[in-house]
């Protein structure tokens, strides 16, 4: 049995496997499938200042080895989240990460301040949601705007601040350096890739919003490349995600520089995925004679 624990910018995780935002709810539904205290951490569904109904349906389309979603951040709003969901998440005996999104700087500031006041292990700042208009991903697509939003919220956040990056950019390393420069404590990537799916028989897009975000095994090679590039570019920890479905996938991300790994779409395929991936990562480490998960990070031989 390898030592799976890792330290993510001062937050100690039992293991490197974190449930990715938007694929695990607030943990309630998943608690019926396995013991969530086995998780390294859980990142909440994306929270905004006000409740959001999200986009019209259909909001999901299957594509080869992946899926495209355009949920559009349906969520109960930060006040209801702090009242009913965060207290529940804190009982789960795993690291609680609150994913915060917004469509204006003011909204980001207010939500971060409220979550910070309520307390959690980390805030994950989502500047990369491709599915809401007038914000979200817009903040994450240039180094200047990414830096600006981090600069605005950093003083308001009393806990470690992780910034989730969009892959829909020309130079991911430049954006990573920009948010590091404004005091981000960690970076998570990748959010979904802007994409679309078409039904040739109806001659219509499958998603009501036309475009959405691609995730799942199909995006893994792109995610690995970007995690590798960002790990080379910054000195803060990187959390890798994008198509992680097995323990070996998780190991690959860590080899490319990730301190921890998020599991997203795999939880939609199978609610037990995170639990299985933790066990598979341990098997890999044991099989390779590697004593600790932490020593995998960045140990890719190039």
């Amino acid at each position, binding site marked *: 049995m390898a030592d799976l624990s890792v330290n993510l910018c001062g937050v100690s995780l039992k293991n490197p496997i974190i449930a990715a935002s938007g694929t695990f709810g607030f943990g309630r*539904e998943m608690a019926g499938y396995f013991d969530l205290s086995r998780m390294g951490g859980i990142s909440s569904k994306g929270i905004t200042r006000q409740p959001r109904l999200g986009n019209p349906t259909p909001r999901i389309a299957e594509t080869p080895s992946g899926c495209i979603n355009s949920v559009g951040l349906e969520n109960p709003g930060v006040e209801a989240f702090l009242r009913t969901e965060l207290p529940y998440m804190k009982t789960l005996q795993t690291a609680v990460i609150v994913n915060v999104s917004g469509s204006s700087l003011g909204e980001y500031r207010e939500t971060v301040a409220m979550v910070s006041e309520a307390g959690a292990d980390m805030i994950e700042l989502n500047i990369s949601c491709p599915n809401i208009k007038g914000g979200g991903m817009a903040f994450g697509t240039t180094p200047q705007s990414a830096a600006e939003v981090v600069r605005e919220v950093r003083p308001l956040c009393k806990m470690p601040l992780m910034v989730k990056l969009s892959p829909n950019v020309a130079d991911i390393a430049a954006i990573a350096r920009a948010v590091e420069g404004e005091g981000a404590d960690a970076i998570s990537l990748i959010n979904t890739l802007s994409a679309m799916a078409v039904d040739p028989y109806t001659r219509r897009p499958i998603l009501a919003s036309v475009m959405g975000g691609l995730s799942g095994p199909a995006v893994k090679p792109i995610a690995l490349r970007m995690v590798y590039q960002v790990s080379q570019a910054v000195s803060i920890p990187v959390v890798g995600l994008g198509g992680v479905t097995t323990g070996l996938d998780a190991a690959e991300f860590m080899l490319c520089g990730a301190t921890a790994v998020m599991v997203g779409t795999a939880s939609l395929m199978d609610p037990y995925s995170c639990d299985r991936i933790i066990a598979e990562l341990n098997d890999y480490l044991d099989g390779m004679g590697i004593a600790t998960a932490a020593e995998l990070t960045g140990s890719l031989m190039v």
Partner: protein
Amino acid sequence: MMQQGSYPVVYNHGVAQDTMHMGLLVGKNLGEEITPGRFVNLKAPGRPDLILRRPISINNYDGETGILELVYQVKGQGTQALAGCREGELVDALGPLGHGFTPKGERNIWLVGGGIGVAPLRYLPLYYKTVRFSGIFGYRTKDCIYQQDDLSASLAFADFYTDDGSNGNQGFVTQGLIKRLESQPAPDAIYACGPVPMLRALKELVLPTNIPCMVSMEERMGCGTGVCVACTCLIQKDGLETRKRVCTDGPVFDIEEVALHG
């Protein structure tokens, strides 16, 4: 709880145009959980590239044989893979999931079904044996009808309609419902499942009657477990709009509060 497992196919054969009837041996004495209106979420066998599960409604379950029956429409790659399953092959199923139809003291319930939406309704009279069920069912054409004798045998009355009149009466189920409402006492409740245009016509028809009406909704799903929030439907209640998840809050909703678009 079945939760997740791989279950052998007992049979899998065509029962109507692009419509298959599959039996899965899921285990005995699970009748408390495998209730009408719930669904199972199946992986497309042999197709790991199709990453999402396929939600299929429960057509019947026999606690003594342990066989779960599913009737599904062959529509895309995933259901094609299911249709290719032979006896003895294993199918990965998660479930049963969702909230189904739950009669609360109603003694006389009418089922209104359209096309593949008739499939989940069949289980109701077989499960709730003390309730008197009747049915009005509509199909595009005679080749789309399945389990007709079986439905007739389990229901107080069973009216069949086709759009083209090739079997039973010509017309829509809502016309059939009007006829029945004119000729006999109203039921205590209506349970319905079918295409959105049918449900929309049904809603218009039943709202003024004050007959309680529950509908099983369909929407493109991601997880089936409530976490991805892809499959929500719009709920309009007391002047407020909210969204509820078809997979976990439903798939059965009060027709009064669910918005029927599309």
